[in-house]
């Protein structure tokens, strides 16, 4: 309904000055409330409406432009010399000095000051005021603070076309430098014009990388040589292995020949502990693990095919995604595959078939990370699909500890080099979890979004974040080594027991299928008392149920045929009762047997 007010004005009066007069208020429209309309609505109780009458404000964030900073030093220049003395002239300065020394004030002053100074020097020499009296107590640090981590620096990929940071390697001494490998792992989705460079960052300068490494194909994994910190090894997207020497510049120093390289991107490269410090090995999803000597990269020194059926067939081989090598066990190494199996191999085996020692399966997807515990090399961590698992070499059937299934895919994991019970995992949704299983086993101790204390984390957008982890997570706790080792042992024992049980059960099944039924059953009756009773009960009830069903079926049939004949029914009933009696007898017998067994025990 429109509310309209109409007024009339003569045309000759348009533009005339307005003469306003007051008049009484007039009621134009009166709309009373219509209760029928209220029926269309439901009353809302409670009502949540803001009724504050203040200015509405909004919050905005703005980031200033990043300032490029450079560190420079300034040298002091001598000054303060009086005008007539030229500081560069030795004679003049000497003369001036001699003059000052002759001054009486000078002599008195120095004598005085000398006395005071001597007193303090002697004091210093007498007692060390900062001596540590309670050395032992210091190591007991009760960390009451919650574990935390702080982002120190973020290193962004300076290229315009962003690539993922696929691998990180710390500089072997001092951890002042970080080598990051950038590449695009989506199959053939690397945009044209994407740079192949990978960078070495200096931790102090997040604005610009220190050195750029230029290969012919993007590098997926990068590792510093632990013996020679100038040499880096990289595995390329096209399967070649490349080697750089930072003293020589950013171009590749050595490159393996394409014919003998891998056929797929090289996902893992690790340096070996050798006297020459030039040996390394690499693994790729084409199923091969190759050993190389840096000095001669034209051909690998050795090739092993990851085929679990031990037939050396390349077609059957499992693609390797992660590689692990522990310097303390130089002949063994482990490979994590795309199919979720971890293969443990022995390098020194005589025949190629014996190279593969054993396999551990348990993951549903590719094993993205594989690392031995630096304190207990028998236990290792694998990360793949939605869980992280800890394994012990002794138990081959399953992992000894595992995390629950997460919402997001786990992409990488690593042990803390300082604390044996702490490890880190990263997830596809961008969280970095820190697990401390001495503290809590089912949840991470710390989750974070986006050397001992520093963690570098690479992301898909190409940014690398440097975090400093709180001291609680990076100082060795009292008894931690013992506690961690006891946890490992306990879990391993549990797995062993389970394994033994599984083996037994499998043997039994095998026996059954071979026809040694009765023997086994007799064994069974002798073995478990409760099981025996339970079984007998089950059989009893089963038979009763089946009889009841038979009865029902017959009754139905009879009602359909409408031939009342009591005989078969009675017989059936009689049979059933007799059988029930039999069963009861048998059960009693079993119980008696059990009882007789017990009494001698």
């Amino acid at each position, binding site marked *: 309904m429109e509310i309209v007010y109409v007024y009339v004005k003569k045309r000759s009066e348009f533009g005339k000055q307005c003469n306003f007069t007051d008049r009484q208020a007039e009621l134009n429209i009166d709309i009373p409330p219509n209760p029928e309309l209220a029926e269309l609505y439901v009353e809302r109780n409670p009502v949540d409406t803001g009724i504050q009458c203040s200015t509405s404000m909004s919050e905005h964030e703005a980031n200033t432009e990043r300032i490029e900073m450079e560190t420079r030093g300034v040298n002091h220049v001598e000054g303060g*010399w009086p005008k007539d003395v030229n500081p560069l002239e030795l004679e003049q300065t000497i003369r001036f000095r001699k003059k000052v020394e002759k001054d009486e004030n000078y002599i008195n002053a*120095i004598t005085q000051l000398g006395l005071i*100074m001597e007193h303090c020097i002697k004091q*210093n*020499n007498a007692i060390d005021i900062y001596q540590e009296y309670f050395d032992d107590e210091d190591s007991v640090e009760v960390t009451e603070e919650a574990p935390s981590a702080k982002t120190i620096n973020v290193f962004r990929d300076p290229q315009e076309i962003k690539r993922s940071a696929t691998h990180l390697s710390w500089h072997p001494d001092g951890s002042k430098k970080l080598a990051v490998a950038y590449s695009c792992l989506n199959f053939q989705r690397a945009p044209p014009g994407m740079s192949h460079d990978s960078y070495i960052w200096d931790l102090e300068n997040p604005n610009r990388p220190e050195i750029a490494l230029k290969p012919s194909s993007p590098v997926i994994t990068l590792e510093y040589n632990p013996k020679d910190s100038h040499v880096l090894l990289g595995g390329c997207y096209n399967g070649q292995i490349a080697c750089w020497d930072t003293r020589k510049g950013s171009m590749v120093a050595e490159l393996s020949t394409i014919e003998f390289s891998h056929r797929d991107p090289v996902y893992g490269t690790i340096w070996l502990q050798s006297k020459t410090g030039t040996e390394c090995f690499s693994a790729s999803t084409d199923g091969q693990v190759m050993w190389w000597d840096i000095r001669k990269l034209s051909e690998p020194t050795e090739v092993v095919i990851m085929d679990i059926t031990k037939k050396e067939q390349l077609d059957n081989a499992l693609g390797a995604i992660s590689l692990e090598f522990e310097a303390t066990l130089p002949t063994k190494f482990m490979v994590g595959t795309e199919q979720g199996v971890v293969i443990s191999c022995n390098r020194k085996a005589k025949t190629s078939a014996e190279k593969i020692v054993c396999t551990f399966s348990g993951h549903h997807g590719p094993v993205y990370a594989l690392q031995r515990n630096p304190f207990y090399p028998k236990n290792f961590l694998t990360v793949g699909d939605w869980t992280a698992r800890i394994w012990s070499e002794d138990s081959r059937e399953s992992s000894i500890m595992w995390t629950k299934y997460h919402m997001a895919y786990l992409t990488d994991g690593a042990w803390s080099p300082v604390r044996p019970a702490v490890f880190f995992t990263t997830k596809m949704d961008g969280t970095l979890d820190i697990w401390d299983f001495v503290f809590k086993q089912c949840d991470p101790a710390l989750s974070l979004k986006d050397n001992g204390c520093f963690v570098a984390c690479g992301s898909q957008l190409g940014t690398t974040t440097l975090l400093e982890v709180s001291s609680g997570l990076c100082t060795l706790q009292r008894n931690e080594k013992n506690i961690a080792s006891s946890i490992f042992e306990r879990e391993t024992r549990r797995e062993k027991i389970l394994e033994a049980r599984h083996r037994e059960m499998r043997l039994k099944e095998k026996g059954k299928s071979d026809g040694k039924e009765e023997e086994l059953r007799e064994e069974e009756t002798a073995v478990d008392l409760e099981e025996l009773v339970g079984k007998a009960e089950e059989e009893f009830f089963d038979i009763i149920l089946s009889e009841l069903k038979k009865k029902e079926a017959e009754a139905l049939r009879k009602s359909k045929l409408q031939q009342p004949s009591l005989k078969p029914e009675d017989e059936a009933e009689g049979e059933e009762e007799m059988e029930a009696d039999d069963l009861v007898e048998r059960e009693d017998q079993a119980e008696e047997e059990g009882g007789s067994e017990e009494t001698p025990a």
Partner: protein
Amino acid sequence: MAEVEETLKRIQNHKGVIGTMVVNAEGIPIRTTLDNSTTVQYAGLLHQLTMKARSTVRDIDPQNDLTFLRIRSKKHEIMVAPDKEYLLIVIQNPCE
């Protein structure tokens, strides 16, 4: 004159002393056992620090005055004995 020499020599020969310098109010090193550039650096920086320390002490209590300044760092200890016109600076490695 000889006393000065003797005093400075004695100080320098104490255990742990790395270097000794005498600097005047303008920051000119009068006497030093270290090389020139280091001396100049120490002289300039410590002079300012001593002035600041002295003014702090006197601000808190005008009757008070600075007699000695000791800066202990990870590597060594720097001791400054200030006077109206001169500064005696000694760098010592305290035995630990």
